[in-house]
């Protein structure tokens, strides 16, 4: 199914007699998930709970003149109603979550509108009632008087001088001089190197284009859901589906003005997130309703609410200009990126800028990014946030360059590829990267050799994502029978419990079936940053391995005690202590089980906890090939074949690494072909459901061949690099380049839906 390419010269910490890492055991949470027992966000109930629901703005931009909830309050069964007035007004305070860093003031206003509703679906009030029907009736009885304001949704329209302003107090950051007037442009960022004019002057060939993408949703199948209880003594409990229970705790504390120790958040199984569950929407509302009503409150979004009120990623307008020598050497690149942020600042344009040219070694370039607020839902992180968008523009332009130069698209990319020791476009010098290896892998793949038929086309594109580390905690407890429990604070979205158990088992030298991995609530394990940014296997895995190493040290100490030797004379191999004391060579080895059985006598329970802030996550690179066939009469596109090669460092559980790659590709194909937010003239979302927001279905896709290239990351005990983000970066352009090859026409506006393709074919016919 997949090839594994090892590069042994760098593999100093991987592949050394690994017994567990690199195998494909059945995931420890699997049986619960195939039998319906796994408890997701909406599967939990508290005694006496009420049903909470949200009243949402029907307007894209409106001043909230008044909210009259008297009739609703009088309805029997209504126990609480909250509006913006029930939440503290927060000062500007940045909570660093990376490129989508959130201002907590904005977060609070996104959770519940104050004086203005900034998008169709913005929460303006919430009720808690004894039943769903009563809650619905109560929502209908709340009278909100709106003063409808002009709205703006397209990014370039929002940047215009005369655009309606979302926030009167926003002055563009990042310009040479602070502007004298507010605007919708939150920030400009710029990365540059060399002499752009000289670079273009040195070019023999220049290509350029304007590219657009539409807002797309993460599309997790599980709607947001939580149950929250605010007890009379102020102790709060939250059960919710999110990418980080500690994130939920922090944000609830900030939005509601609570102390962190008063909030305990228990992570439910999470039904997909892809970045979309890295923030809160319902939890603070449920807590506020619980406080007011004195009952636990359960809230579950409808699919319509998920689309209208939770984070899509940005729509964009982009300009790319590339110059190259006839031999393919790229001499200059000028990239301008304009990203929708939605109602509040914080589009991922910064990451989009930093990743845009990260696969290329280009002496002269300039990348300019604009973060622009619009009357659309506040964007949330979506898998490699910002990177697929800018990669779409750049990879289409590189494809055009290859065509103009008459070069093979992979050869052109190889010629300009970043390699170890070269400076990344965003600054630092690359080390231990496996980019050219992924190019080599697709070039030599069987897929690249298959001849194409009529109306078929092949596209190539590459992608980059940084991957991150960060704060994680892991605890490892050895049971008296020699089995172990590994506890972490990271929700398991895609099988991370399996990789945690595998890494612990490897480090302990025992079978993976002897290790049970648990994801604990915020009161039961130390702080861990959320599951996202492809950090869990790397950073939390590092904590797990270090905890296991501490346990091994302790086991050796216990064995030494049992044998009455020095701990220096104990060796730990494959889960067994060996006595090295020359005077006591008769001591039979002691298994973990045997040592654990003596733990009471030798000092008590054997366990270890490690909290760390992991640094040195290795960047991820991917190279993809996509084949499509066009129906020239209808403009329909069929994806015939797809191959994705990626540097994964070291695949801990290869099946779930392949799964990450395949899933990212599928999302990217959907983004390229059919997914988009469609708004009507009044700024209301027209396709807030899975019928008309068209995510790929099983019959839309072929098998997706995942090629894992393993160039180990020396900072990780087994060489792992994050794998979840980068697979979504190349597909937009890989599909678009395949469509260009099949039609002979470059299309620059996503999605490449049938009407658009038929229109360009008609235009081509003349």
């Amino acid at each position, binding site marked *: 199914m997949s090839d594994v390419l090892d590069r042994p010269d760098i593999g100093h910490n991987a592949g050394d007699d690994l017994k567990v890492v690199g195998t494909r055991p059945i995931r420890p949470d699997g049986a619960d998930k195939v039998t319906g027992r796994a408890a997701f966000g909406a599967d939990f109930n508290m005694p006496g709970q009420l049903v909470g629901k949200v009243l949402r703005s029907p307007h894209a931009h409106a001043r909230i003149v008044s909210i009259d909830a008297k009739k609703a309050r009088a309805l029997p069964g209504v126990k609480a109603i909250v509006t913006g007035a029930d939440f503290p007004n927060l000062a500007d305070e940045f909570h660093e979550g990376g490129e989508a860093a959130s201002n907590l003031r904005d977060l609070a206003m996104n959770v519940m509108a104050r004086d203005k509703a900034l998008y169709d679906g913005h929460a303006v009030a919430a009720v808690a009632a004894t039943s769903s029907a009563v809650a619905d009736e109560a929502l209908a009885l709340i009278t909100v008087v709106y003063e409808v304001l002009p709205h703006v949704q397209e990014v370039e329209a929002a940047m215009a001088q005369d655009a309606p302003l979302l926030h009167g107090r926003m002055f563009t950051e990042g310009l040479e001089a602070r502007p004298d007037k507010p605007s919708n442009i939150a920030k400009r960022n710029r990365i540059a190197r060399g002499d752009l004019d000289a670079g273009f002057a040195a070019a023999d060939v220049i290509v350029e284009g304007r590219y657009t993408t539409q807002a797309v949703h993460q599309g997790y199948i599980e709607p947001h859901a939580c149950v929250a209880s605010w007890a009379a003594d102020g102790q709060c409990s939250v059960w919710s589906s999110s990418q980080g229970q500690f994130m939920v705790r922090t944000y609830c504390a900030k939005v509601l003005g609570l102390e962190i120790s008063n909030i305990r958040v228990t992570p439910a199984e999470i039904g997909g997130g892809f970045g979309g569950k890295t923030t809160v929407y319902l939890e603070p509302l449920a807590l506020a309703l619980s406080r007011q009503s004195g009952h636990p409150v359960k809230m579950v979004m409808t699919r319509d609410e998920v689309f209208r009120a939770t984070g899509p990623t940005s729509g964009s307008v982009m300009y790319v200009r590339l110059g190259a020598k006839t031999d393919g050497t790229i001499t200059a690149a000028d990239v301008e990126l304009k990203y929708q942020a939605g109602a509040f600042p914080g589009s991922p344009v910064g990451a989009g800028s930093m990743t845009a040219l990260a696969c290329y070694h280009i002496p002269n370039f300039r990348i300019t990014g604009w973060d622009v607020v619009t009357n659309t839902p506040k964007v949330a992180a979506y898998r490699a946030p910002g990177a697929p968008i800018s990669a779409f523009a750049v990879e289409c332009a590189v494809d055009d360059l290859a065509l103009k130069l008459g070069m093979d698209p992979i050869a052109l990319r190889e010629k300009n590829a970043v390699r170890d020791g070269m400076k990344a476009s965003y600054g630092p010098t690359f080390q231990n990267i496996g980019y050219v290896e992924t190019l080599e892998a697709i070039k030599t793949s069987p897929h690249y050799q298959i001849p194409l038929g009529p109306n078929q086309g092949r596209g190539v594109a590459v992608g980059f994502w940084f991957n991150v580390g960060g704060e994680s905690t892991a605890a490892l407890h050895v049971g008296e029978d020699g089995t172990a429990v590994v506890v972490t604070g990271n929700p398991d979205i895609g099988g991370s419990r399996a990789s945690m158990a595998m890494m612990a088992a490897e480090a302990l030298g025992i079978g993976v079936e002897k290790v049970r991995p648990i994801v604990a609530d915020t009161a039961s394990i130390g702080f861990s940053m959320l599951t996202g940014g492809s950090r869990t296997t790397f950073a939390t895995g590092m904590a797990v391995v270090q905890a296991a190493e501490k346990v091994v040290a302790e086991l050796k100490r216990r064995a030494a005690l049992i044998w009455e030797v020095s701990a220096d004379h104990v060796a730990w191999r494959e889960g067994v202590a060996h006595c090295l004391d020359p005077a006591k060579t008769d001591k039979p080895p002691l298994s973990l089980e045997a040592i654990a059985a003596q733990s009471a006598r030798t000092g008590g329970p054997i366990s270890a906890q490690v909290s760390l802030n992991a640094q040195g996550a290795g960047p991820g690179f991917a190279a993809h090939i996509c084949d499509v066939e066009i129906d020239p009469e209808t403009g329909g596109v069929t994806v015939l074949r797809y191959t994705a090669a990626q540097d994964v460092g070291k695949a801990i559980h290869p099946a779930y690494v392949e799964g990450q790659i395949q899933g990212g590709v599928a999302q990217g194909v959907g983004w390229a072909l059919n997914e988009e937010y469609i708004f009507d003239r009044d700024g209301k979302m027209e396709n807030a459901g899975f019928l008309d927001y068209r995510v790929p*279905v099983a019959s839309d896709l072929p098998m997706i061949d995942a090629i894992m290239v393993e160039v180990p990351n020396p900072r990780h005990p087994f060489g792992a690099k994050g794998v979840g983000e980068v697979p979504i970066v190349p597909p937009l352009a890989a599909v678009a380049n395949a469509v260009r090859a099949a039609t002979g026409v470059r299309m620059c506006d996503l999605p490449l839906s049938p009407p658009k393709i038929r229109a360009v074919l008609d235009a081509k016919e003349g």
Partner: protein
Amino acid sequence: MSQLDYLAPATADEAVKALGGAGARAMAGGTDLLVQLRAGRAKPNVIVDLKRIAGAVGIRQEAGAFIIGAATSGAAIGEHAALVKAWPGVVEATNLIGSTQVQGRATLAGNLCNASPAADSVPAMIAARAVCVIIGPGGRREAPVEAICTAPGRTSLAPGEFVLEIRLPARPARASDAYLRLIPRTEMDIAVVGAGVSLVLDGAGVITDAQVSLGAVAPTALLVADASLALVGSKLDEAALAKLDAAARDACRPISDKRGTAEYRTKIAGVLARRAAAIAYSRAGGQA
């Protein structure tokens, strides 16, 4: 609180009585009604489930005609070998409605009476000259399928009336039909354009009878008379296909919406009419 009752009458007469009240809605498969209920677009007082009426579920043959009970699921229709052989176009149109799951519930009568301009089975039924058997306070009457929908979401059924059966006529030899639709994905979408074609050939392969119907290009599914004229007398040669394409496009009165532009729909109507005709012709034993 809004009142809602659910009734599942065992006879057509009881159903007529139940449907006589204000705010009553007939439910066959329920795959449209339940979505409308949830979205608040339908607010009936009473839901009258037709599935327990004797004869409402099932397919029987009478003198070569097929009588399909109103509450017969798409899945059951797809499993009926004789029906598939006689009316492959109607069956494939029916089986395109929604997912496998929706096929377990969705019905021809429901697809028709929901009165969506984009209903997949309707153009196929119109092309097939299907007839509805309607029961109501005034007794029993029959009406051709094309007489049922009057506008999006509206039907010609009188209060208290419901479709009990759909009849597909007997087929002569060398006759067949086909239905094609265009959707952006491969499944799970509403038709951007649908085209149903039913043909009868003579021994020489000349088309002696043709019915062409288009969906999603006007407020209701269209019966395109000029398209029939384009085909009759031909062996589906290039000229006939070109005339068919033109007639189909001429008949279109589409809107532009989130699912497709008017211009695109019009072009595709011609494409699909041609392709469906070719399939029907081949199925009927013609050699193009």
